[in-house]
């Protein structure tokens, strides 16, 4: 689904964040990407989304090198992603309206795209109907994050990239949204990559976990965590062991 092949990347005046970095995401995987602040997690997602391009090497999605954001990839970032002047409903429909503007050109929208703007189904699914007419500044952080999810899911992505989507939320809201994401992952047949700096979140959501360290990242440290996403995983010894392992891995970097 998504492949980093010998990727080297650095910002214009910086040291390389990734150096000959290899990473493969299979279709239907649920990945968590974990690492300390500044290690390049957001950069990794921007590369995967086609918003940044490697200095060397290639990022491929479904075997094709990325040259621009791809219509079937959805990206959700922490805060700041919603238009402050648009209501929840308008924000949720933004991706569709962007597509309607260009038509089914295969670049900004898939070739088989049928113009539409109705997002009621998604607002309902994410419990946003009551606040559909509110502006982002008038709703809670959790509702804002759900709006961002609705906006992305309305585009029917097959690859969903999330950058610390829940880090500014309180624990119950965060855990609720984590389960929601796992639910959506299962029934929308998504491939999921979730970036986080929280060990517990990585262990709850990532069936596979990529641990990044201080740059430059060369060797991907990958951990299997098959129990993730199951309802009572948090209470199991496997979960505890994974968390412990991740904690040590992070301390080493």
């Amino acid at each position: 689904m998504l492949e980093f092949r010998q990727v080297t990347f650095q910002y214009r005046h910086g040291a390389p964040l990734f150096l000959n970095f290899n990473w493969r995401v299979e279709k239907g995987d649920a990945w968590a990407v974990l690492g300390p602040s500044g290690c390049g997690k957001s950069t990794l997602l921007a590369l995967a989304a086609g918003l940044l391009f490697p200095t060397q090497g290639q990022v491929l999605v479904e075997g094709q090198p990325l040259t621009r954001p791809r219509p079937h990839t959805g990206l959700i970032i922490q805060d700041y992603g919603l238009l402050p002047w648009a209501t929840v409903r308008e924000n949720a429909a933004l991706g569709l309206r962007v597509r309607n503007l260009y038509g089914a050109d295969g670049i900004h929208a898939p070739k088989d795209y049928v113009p539409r703007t109705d997002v009621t189904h998604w607002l309902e699914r994410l419990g946003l109907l009551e606040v559909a007419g509110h502006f982002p500044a008038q709703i809670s952080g959790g509702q804002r994050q759900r709006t961002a999810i609705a906006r992305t899911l309305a585009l029917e992505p097959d690859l969903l990239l999330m950058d610390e989507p829940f880090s500014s939320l309180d624990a119950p809201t965060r855990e609720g949204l984590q389960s929601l994401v796992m639910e959506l992952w299962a029934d929308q047949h998504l491939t999921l990559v979730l970036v986080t700096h929280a060990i517990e979140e990585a262990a709850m959501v990532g069936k596979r976990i990529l641990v990044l360290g201080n740059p430059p990242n060369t060797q991907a440290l990958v951990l299997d965590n098959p129990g993730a996403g199951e309802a009572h995983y948090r209470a199991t010894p496997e979960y505890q062991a994974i968390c412990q392992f991740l904690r040590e891995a992070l301390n080493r970097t």
Partner: protein
Amino acid sequence: MKRRDFLLALLALLALWQVLAWLVNQPILPDPWRVFGALIQETLSGDLPIHFLASLWRVVASTLLSILLAAPAGLVLGQSQRLNRLFTPIIYLLYPIPKVVFVPVLLLFFGIGDLSKILVIFLILFFQILVLVRDQAAALRPELILSVRSLGAGRRALFRFVYLPASLPGILTALRQSIGTAVAVLYVAELFATRVGLGYYIYFQGSTLLNYPAMYAGILAMSFLGLGLYFLVDGLERRLCRWQVR
């Protein structure tokens, strides 16, 4: 503000005017009824509409011109730190200068036609819009742009869904704040070297023809011009910038 309060205020002002007219009891302050009579008469059979339209055209033309030039410039400055650093000192120096002092200069350079008057108002509005749009554009987070781009937005969609709505509040606030000044400066500009426009009309009726009711009718027309534009902008701001007002 309720419509009823608005009407009451209007009535109170008219009553005050009436009382003053009685007290002064001289032709230089006619009462409201005579002025409204003159206004209707000058509108129906005089050439007040021509002067009104000439002034309106100058304000509208300069407003459109300043929006068209200042809004894109403000967006560019707000998004590019390098350009902004370059231009900030220049704007800082030019912004507070009272633009009305340029009236004689503009008359010398651009003659007695519409252009010199349009340029005076343009100078006022341009800087106001530029500064406010720039600040709004600077407040646009790069993350927001990235996330809209990730939805498939290219330049056209970014303009339509991000830059255009982001610059609207700046434009409308600037217009609301400075449309009054613009009309005042227009009046001054129209005192010089022109034969059409409300400024000329008011001056001519008052000091040459000594037709005071007509002079006041001209003043009313100019007030309507300013008020009408203000209400228009205010209404647009309420409608289009609901997300900010609350």
